[in-house]
């Protein structure tokens, strides 16, 4: 399960036959009491298998909305979107993805292991299978030994790791993460970013990751989607030349800073459009 550089290198270029997310001319308009709001407009985007795609942009740029459309938590009003070749509703019914919210949202009355077992219970896994998977996923997020704790007994970072374990427990190939580390302090966030990359390398999941933070987006992603608001749209898509194996100090390298610069330029350009 170790990250094999040869295999990883291959995966950076998305294989057109195994696209996990395919959006064509996607648009979403919310009807509110104050009139209609165009949250997404004409989004064309393809996410290949094994990619780590970050969505970055200011509030209201539709990055979370896009994630929620993939997850069938919102429905598009224009265009078409396929998840694993299915409509989002079909993908949701076939439990194609795990979703991590900004708030860990663990159920306070369940222990950590029972929280991770929640999707497994719902999906009808046997008791033995549940135990085995809970054990394995908690191991994966370095929470072994905390099975019997209740959420309030864990720090914010640990709670978020438990919620990632919960999203991983049923082995969906796609992981949707909506600013999962947004509420955590910088040091914890660095640590979790490192662990997330390690986890991605070991599980070979496809990850869509929404964030506010430029360094986070550049550090984690194979591709960065820069978005801008009113209407929410994609303004730039940046392929990262960084290798898959990324120590934290890669953030000091010129390549890293160059990508970060381009992302910042993209964000600024989107902003001056108003």
């Amino acid at each position, binding site marked *: 399960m170790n990250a094999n550089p040869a295999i990883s290198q291959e995966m950076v270029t998305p294989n057109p036959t195994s696209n996990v997310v395919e959006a064509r001319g996607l648009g979403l308009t919310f009807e509110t009491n104050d009139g209609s709001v165009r949250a997404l407009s004409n989004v064309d985007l393809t996410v290949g298998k094994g990619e780590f795609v970050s969505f970055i942009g200011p509030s209201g740029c539709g990055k979370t909305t896009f994630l929620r459309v993939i*997850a*069938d*938590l919102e429905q598009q009003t224009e265009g078409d979107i396929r998840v694993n070749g299915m409509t989002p509703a079909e993908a*949701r*019914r076939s*439990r194609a*993805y*795990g*979703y991590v*919210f900004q*708030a860990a*949202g663990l*159920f*306070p*009355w*369940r*222990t950590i292991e029972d929280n991770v077992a*929640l*999707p497994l*219970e*719902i*999906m009808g896994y046997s008791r033995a299978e549940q135990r085995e998977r809970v054990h394995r996923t908690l191991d994966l997020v370095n929470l072994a030994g905390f099975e019997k704790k*209740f*959420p*309030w007994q864990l720090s914010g970072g640990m709670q978020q790791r438990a919620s990632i374990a919960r999203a991983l427990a049923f082995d969906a190939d796609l992981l949707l993460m909506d600013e999962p580390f947004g509420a955590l302090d910088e040091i914890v966030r660095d640590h979790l970013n490192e662990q997330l990359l390690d986890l991605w390398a070991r599980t070979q999941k496809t990850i869509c990751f929404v964030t506010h933070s430029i360094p986070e987006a550049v550090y984690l992603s194979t591709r960065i989607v820069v978005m801008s608001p009113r209407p929410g749209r994609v303004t730039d898509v940046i392929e990262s030349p960084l290798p898959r194996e990324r120590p934290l100090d890669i953030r000091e390298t010129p390549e890293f800073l160059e990508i970060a610069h381009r992302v910042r330029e993209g964000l600024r350009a989107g902003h001056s459009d108003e």
Partner: protein
Amino acid sequence: MSLALTTAPAAPSLLHRLAAGKTLPVLIVLAALLALWYAFTVYLNAPWQVDAYERAGTTWTTADLVRDTMAQERPVMPAPHQVAAEIWKTTAGTRITSKRSLFHHAWVTLSSTLLGFLIGTVLGVLLAVGIVHNRAMDKSVMPWVIASQTIPILAIAPMIIVVLNAIGLSGLLPKALISTYLSFFPVVVGMVKGFRSPEVNQLDLMRTYNASGPQTFWKLRWPSALPYLFTSMKVAVAISLVGAIVGELPTGAVAGLGARLLAGSYYGQTVQIWSALFMAAALAALLVGVIGIGQRLVMARMGEKP
């Protein structure tokens, strides 16, 4: 204060321990209330007593007056020790099977309280489930639930008894239904709030798992609502008791705390009324306490932060 306790080298004196805990403040308040009560006993019973002295033509001192106002047979306000003596006489001093036993009357009221409370709680939870899951019920049921509580229970209690009697229902159930009428309300209101207490994220999460309605209910809504259930049950059981007592008043009930109150007021037996009132209060405290214990046990199992 607990720190002072644990660090004290020798066993602290009783007085010290009382002062450190809640006991002393509670005792002081209790003593103040008793003193106030005695003062009112003398004040309220004095006119009748003075009348009695004058009719009998006896001379009296203030000490006589104070003593005699606390020993009247039908006082306006019985003294605490008179009530205590009456309670003692009708509980410990009487066989429990006797019609004069206060325990017997308390049990009659308690049985209809519990039955009514049980029906009320189940009904309240079911209505809340309907209101939360069905838009039509949400719009239509809640106003009726609230309207039902604006009708004075004293007015509707006899109607319930009469109507149920006409369809052949008598005995425990009609009385219990009056308790139900009062007790379902806090449960509906509390549980609607409880079932709606899960966060949007938590509901979205269940949706991403493609969880069925019953799964979302049992794994998310029900556990979220449990703290609300216990809080509403505490209110519900107390007013259930009120309902049971009120249910006994217009029906000419022969047993129960309500019947005891009614008989007491017919014959001017204020001591009997007050002892029945105290028994009712003790019963309410007991019921609320039992639910409180249940709440603590359940919440501890649900990992509540101590």
